[in-house]
């Protein structure tokens, strides 16, 4: 098939069109068939593509769909590109995506918006594949924006609840803040490299940045975009709120695929980042700080989905850490294992929520291990995987990240390793707490709900089992080594080779220690979060309040804006507005808008005065320079 990649991308789009236009009329059966069938078709084609790629010895496959725009001497083509990196990503997206589509047929069965849901989900898959397979950064950007749109539609899927609709908007706007940086990075990159096709960009940068351009500037600008999409500090605020969407959506978009787009983009452009040590240092620092920050917050959360959301932010931070120290293949490896176990965890959480009739607070769960055994077993496997218990998938990828954080010659450092190790310990700890309080602790479910607890239908449990299996054995695929011809691993700092084996043992110890420490507290019948609150009330307030980032944005962004007339402040605070949450933006905007509307009095004399004042000011300003 000569248009393999085009078909991979187009199948989900066909699903979107079908379900969006005709789904409501044709009934749930047709919707499920088309909505799941086409993604599975896409997956099958991707597998075919992977086999062809392997047969071709990893020679990239390029398909030009059509020439989109010619500006000056440069033409932007919509071309798709399948190489070692994008094939891994495409397999994850279509594979996990298909599984989650199947799961959704059970989870969303009784929802009145069934067809609309599948239409959006297919739409998401289409844009995600555009993002992954696009050869040019511009095509990637179209996908990038598109997944944002689909995510916005899905977070706000139950829009009758204004809180949820607002969460959708917050996600969208925070993301667009990052996109501003992304777009600028793209402009500068285009000036520098003369092309946006990523393989050519990497080739241009392979011999250093073009004269007069700083690779680090480009790198940081693009990374700003990644912080938005992949929920890194300081643009992480949207992801926890995004849990308002249906749980399979959280699993697919906000854990397995979309949020990893930033990681993928950086790995895709490794040519630039290889020449940008400053940008890489920034990425590593932001990554490790985000990882630690989110892991501490996850300790104190009581909403099952919020715990998982912060855990996602934390794991994404680890991936960025790996990118920052030049271990691109390792980051993609963790991306790949994370997709399995985090999707499994989210879907398991969905199954629990489903069983409990909508309950999400882990303080009102417990004792579910026997009632929903399949869910429990799969959840436990995935939790052990993320905690880093060998030989499950998470162990391999996380261990390699820790190793390169310390040993990489391009930016590895002791402090990076120490913070990452602490994160790994905390991860094991909070996952153990989550598992215990949900499934093993004495039941705190009220009697009425308890009577209705039931295991989920087979469409859901089957998917859970599949994902749990992948979480268990997925680590044995040596993704970094498959990617090595494309993304070579960084050299190891001299003298550290001997440490490799002891460090592996240490990471096992960290994982087991985390679980053990949690078990020690939990076995005494106490919630570690409670203990923490009792012992260190001040610190707990800070952590449980998510370090008051939302509040800080609200306060620090709004106040300086009274000084709008000051130009420096204008520029400064605008940055901050953009960094800020939607609330702050809205409050500020409302206030300025009110002020501006007051100028619109309807009084003609005032209007004329403004006009004359404008002309006079223009004249004065210009004549100053003559």
């Amino acid at each position, binding site marked *: 098939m000569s248009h393999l990649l085009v078909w991979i991308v187009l199948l989900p789009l066909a699903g979107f069109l079908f379900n969006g236009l005709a789904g409501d009329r044709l009934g749930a059966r047709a919707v499920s068939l088309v909505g799941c069938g086409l993604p599975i078709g896409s997956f099958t084609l991707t597998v075919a593509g992977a086999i062809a790629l392997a047969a071709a010895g990893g020679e990239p496959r390029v398909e030009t769909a059509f*020439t*989109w*725009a*010619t*500006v*000056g001497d440069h033409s*932007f083509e919509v071309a798709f590109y399948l190489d070692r990196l994008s094939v891994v990503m495409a397999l994850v997206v279509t594979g996990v995506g298909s599984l989650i589509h199947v799961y959704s047929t059970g989870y969303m069965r009784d929802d009145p918006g069934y067809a609309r849901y599948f239409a959006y989900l297919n739409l998401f898959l289409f844009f995600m594949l555009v993002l992954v397979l696009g050869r040019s950064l511009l095509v990637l*950007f*179209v996908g990038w*924006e*598109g997944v944002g749109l689909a995510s916005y*539609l899905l977070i*706000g899927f139950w*829009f*009758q609840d204004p809180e949820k*609709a607002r969460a*959708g*908007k917050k996600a*969208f*706007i925070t993301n*667009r*803040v990052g996109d*501003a940086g992304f*777009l*600028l990075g793209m*402009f*500068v990159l285009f*000036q520098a490299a003369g092309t946006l096709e990523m393989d050519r960009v990497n080739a241009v940068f392979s011999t250093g940045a073009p004269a007069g351009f700083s690779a680090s500037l480009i790198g940081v600008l693009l990374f700003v975009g990644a912080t938005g999409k992949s929920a890194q500090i300081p643009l992480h605020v949207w992801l926890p709120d995004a849990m308002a969407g249906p749980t399979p959506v959280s699993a697919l978009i906000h854990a397995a695929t979309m949020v990893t787009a930033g990681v993928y983009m950086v790995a895709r452009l490794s040519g630039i980042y290889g020449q940008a040590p400053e940008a890489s240092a920034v990425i590593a620092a932001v990554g490790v700080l985000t990882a630690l920050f989110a892991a501490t917050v996850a300790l104190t959360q009581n909403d099952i989905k919020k715990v998982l959301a912060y855990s996602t932010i934390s794991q994404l931070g680890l991936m960025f850490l790996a990118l920052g120290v030049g271990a691109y293949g390792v980051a993609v490896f963790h991306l790949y294992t994370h997709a399995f176990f985090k999707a499994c965890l989210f879907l398991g959480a969905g199954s629990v929520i489903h069983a409990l009739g909508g309950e999400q607070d882990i303080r009102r769960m417990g004792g579910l291990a026997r009632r929903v055994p399949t869910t429990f077993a799969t959840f436990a496997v995935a939790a052990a995987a993320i905690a880093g218990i060998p030989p499950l998938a998470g162990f391999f990828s996380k261990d390699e990240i820790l190793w390169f954080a310390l040993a990489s010659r391009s930016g590895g450092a002791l402090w990076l390793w120490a913070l990452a190790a602490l994160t790994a310990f905390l991860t094991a700890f909070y996952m153990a707490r989550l598992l215990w309080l949900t499934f093993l602790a004495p039941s705190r479910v009220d009697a009425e709900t308890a009577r209705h607890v039931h295991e989920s239908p087979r469409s859901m449990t089957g998917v859970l089992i599949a994902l749990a299996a992948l979480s268990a054995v997925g680590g044995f695929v040596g993704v970094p080594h498959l990617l090595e011809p494309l993304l070579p691993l960084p050299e190891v700092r001299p003298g550290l080779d001997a440490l490799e084996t002891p460090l592996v043992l240490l990471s096992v110890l960290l994982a087991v220690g985390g679980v053990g420490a949690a078990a020690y507290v939990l076995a005494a019948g106490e919630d570690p979060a409670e203990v923490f609150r009792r012992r260190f009330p001040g610190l707990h307030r800070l952590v449980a309040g998510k370090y008051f980032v939302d509040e800080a944005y609200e306060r620090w962004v709004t106040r300086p804006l009274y000084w709008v007339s000051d130009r420096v402040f204008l*520029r400064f605070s*605008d*940055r901050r507005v*953009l960094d800020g949450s939607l609330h702050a*933006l*809205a409050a500020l*905007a*409302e206030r*300025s*808008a*009110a002020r*501006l*509307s007051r*100028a*619109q009095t*309807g009084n*003609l004399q*005032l*209007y*004329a005065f*403004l*006009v004359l*004042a*404008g*002309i006079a000011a*223009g*004249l004065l*300003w*210009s*004549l100053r*320079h*003559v």
Partner: protein
Amino acid sequence: MSAETVLTALLPEVLLLAGLLLLIGLEIAVPRHRGAFAVSLLAVAAAAAAAAWLSAGGSSAAPFPGHYSVGPDTFAAKAVVLALAVPVLLLARGEFPGGPFYPLLVSSLLGVCLVVSADSFLTLFLGVELMSIPVYVLVVLAFQREESAEAALKYLVLSGTASATFLLGVSLLYGGSGSLALSAFSTALGSRDVLATAGVVLVLSAFFLKAAVVPFHTWAPDAYEAASVPVTAYMAAVVKAGVLFAVLRLFALAPAERPLVDLLALLPLASMVWGNLAAMRQDGLRRLIAYSSIAHAGYLFYAFLGDGPGRFQAVTFYLLAYGLMNVLVLAALPPAGDDVARDRLERLKGLFQRQPYAAWMIAVAMLSLAGIPPFPGFVAKFLVFKNVVAAGYPVYAVLGLVGSYLGLYFYLRVIQYLFMAPPPPAEEASAAEGEGAPSRLALAATVLCLLPAILIALFPGWVIDRLGG
């Protein structure tokens, strides 16, 4: 120069004029005739086709040397403007069964064509006035409300101020150069002379006012709101295009230089911020479009920071994308019992459940206006900002992007109303009752906007190539 070449060069204008005379003749000869719509539609469509054909043929001529010339670029610009007027006419059918609307619209279009081809200040002035004066009357034609007359008067007075400012600026430029050719403006751009600079600033201020750039924008919200829907569409899409083409003619290929750069950056920047912020508070769709158009005037003038050849492409493409989307919103707006009710944003709540097609159309237009890929508005903004960066003003590009993100809030609010808000409560059901499906002509108008929009979204390269430069 033979009469034939002259007539060919003037073909779009001649067709418009013939239509105009026919309209007036009909009005005189046949009482209560119903042919005005058909005649004007025919004339405008024929003129648009002629312009497109001539542009593709690459013909150029100067039928009135020194005052009026045509080339592929000008024909392309005329084709864009006239093509935008076609869906506007389709919208008008329901609102204006006959009467002065049609002759006024056609003569205003004639003015736009004149502007696009002007080579001297005299022609330019004539064109701008011929374009604007009918619009004052068009605003007043929505006579259901008293505000219409008031808004039209404001528009008239402020526009008159602009004309006076323009003439004063031109007289200064003429004094300096001794020439009425438009090139006097572009040569004055690089000048350090007091008179020349003052002349340039005055002329530019006049066009800032006509295009509604802060702080000269004050007439726009009132006028857009007071006018009836097709007139609002006409002002937003066609008149704005005419003004920008006038500025394009003025600048020709000359680069913007200091101190003008600051003026060309700061006021448009203020427009983006002001327009986008003020739009958040609006609860009427037309006022919202007015503020959005103020912001878009900012982006459009930003293009002049860029270099010459890219400028024409960027501005023309932008005008096309932006005009199509504005007309699309207004065409998809479901009709209602009365004009004020039709305008209320609240009424869009839950429109998706009632009229999915209309909701999708409005959503597409909003996303495009917000500049989100892959909608055409994104390509348009991309071209503008790319030129700004390429011309060496990255700081202004950053500030502009920041300004443009402020606009997201209200575009998304509309989408939220369409898809994510429950339909209006029961007591408003009466208001919703008057809501009918869009007329067949309005549907045709949406298609006429949507198809080219899809085309330019899929093949912007093809369009940009056609725009020469």
